[in-house]
């Protein structure tokens, strides 16, 4: 039997007078790797931020990792790792000090050994004492990944995780994502880097005009079929509805 890691019903979110999410229904089962696709401004980041408990919503029911939002946000936060556009890293602290701070905040057991292992995994062990301010964008992104993995969450939310990474950094991230998927973690990603996410994904969902308008299970998909499917659905007009 599979359990739902994300269960969203009738989710409504607006910024000012503009509705971004219009009664969105969406589920992600435990252990799945779901890639969320959609044109710019479709609401992918907003959806991930709502799931990460960072953004409030106007209506609907949201349950993440067994915790209902916003009432049980604190419980949800213990089970969610979120890597967004910002790294959440303190530029004046070193890589090690940043991770130590988050380890204290989350009360990570055996923190020093875990920090050491993660810095090695993301290839920053040699730079562990350098201030984050001196890191390139890609290195900061790798350290942000270590920050997310530090708490060992069952649900991981990645918003365009390959942004700013060089080939080596992107390859490292891909390897880590594969490892996480093999461990049975639930991953939700937004990315248009089809070659990188195709081997990972269990399913592709299209977020368009405030709703999930199409879903494509990954049964031996090729990049071309995925691209064709995406193009077809994004250009297909979705009937406007009053909300």
């Amino acid at each position: 039997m599979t359990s739902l890691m994300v269960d969203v019903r009738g989710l409504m979110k607006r910024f000012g007078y503009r509705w971004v999410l219009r009664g969105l229904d969406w589920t992600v089962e435990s252990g799945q790797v779901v890639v969320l696709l959609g044109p710019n401004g479709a609401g992918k980041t907003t959806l991930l931020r709502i799931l990460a408990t960072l953004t409030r919503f106007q209506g609907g029911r949201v349950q993440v990792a067994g915790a209902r939002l916003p009432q049980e946000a604190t419980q949800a936060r213990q089970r969610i790792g979120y890597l967004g556009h910002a790294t959440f890293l303190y530029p004046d602290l070193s890589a090690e000090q940043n991770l130590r701070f988050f380890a204290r905040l989350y009360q990570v057991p055996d923190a020093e050994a875990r920090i050491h292992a993660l810095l090695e995994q993301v290839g920053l062990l040699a730079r562990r004492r350098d201030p984050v301010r001196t890191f390139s964008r890609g290195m900061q992104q790798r350290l942000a990944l270590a920050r997310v993995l530090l708490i060992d969450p069952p649900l991981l939310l990645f918003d365009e995780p390959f942004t700013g990474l060089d080939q080596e950094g992107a390859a490292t991230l891909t390897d880590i994502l594969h490892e996480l998927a093999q461990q049975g973690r639930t991953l939700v990603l937004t990315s248009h880097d089809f070659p990188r996410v195709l081997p990972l994904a269990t399913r592709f969902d299209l977020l368009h005009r405030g709703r999930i308008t199409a879903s494509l299970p990954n049964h031996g998909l090729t990049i071309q079929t995925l691209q064709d499917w995406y193009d077809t659905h994004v250009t297909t007009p979705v009937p406007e509805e009053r909300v």
Partner: protein
Amino acid sequence: MNTGTSFWKAAWAVFLKDLIAEWRSREILTAQWTFALLVIFIFDFALEFDPRAQQRVAVGVLWTLFAFAGTLGLNRSLSMERENQCLEGLLLAPVDRGALYLGKALANLVFLFVTAAIVIPVYSALYNVSLLHPGFLLVLFLGFVGYIAVGTLIATMTVQARTRDILLPLLLFPLILPIIVAAVRASEGFLLGNPWSEIRTWVNLLVVYNILFGTASFLAFDFVVEG
């Protein structure tokens, strides 16, 4: 997870992080020291030829410079959370928002005390006033606690605004006016050797202000950051 323990551990983590960040950057203390010492020297030159006026305004000058130097520190302390959207990183943690507030406020309090430790000896020498009076030190403590309790909350509210440098003093100073008035009156009373019956009202005001505004700020922090 024990909620009580995690509250204090989280507050300690934030406090320690702010101290380490300041140790590495020295941005807050440098700004506060520079500003405070400049104000002292400027007033010293301005009042050089009138020792009586110097004595009369001495405590007022001191509290004014703490209020302004404090806003510099508060601004920089919260700006640190704005860079890379670190405040959101804090909000992702499964901890009570009050713990985050407490950690930030305690760190800001330490920065202000360190500034006072540098400023007071210089001030005493230039204005020929001995400030090592237990009563004055008590007033200093009470005044700083109230100022930082409210200041940390207001700085959190204004940190995302483009006009935060203006907005922070504009919102903060009307709120801390009772503290400044009470602290100046009580400090004067202690330093001039006035009877306790004359000073008590001002000290009581400081204590009541701290309890009321400290509690309100602690409780309101959650609403401010969840916005």
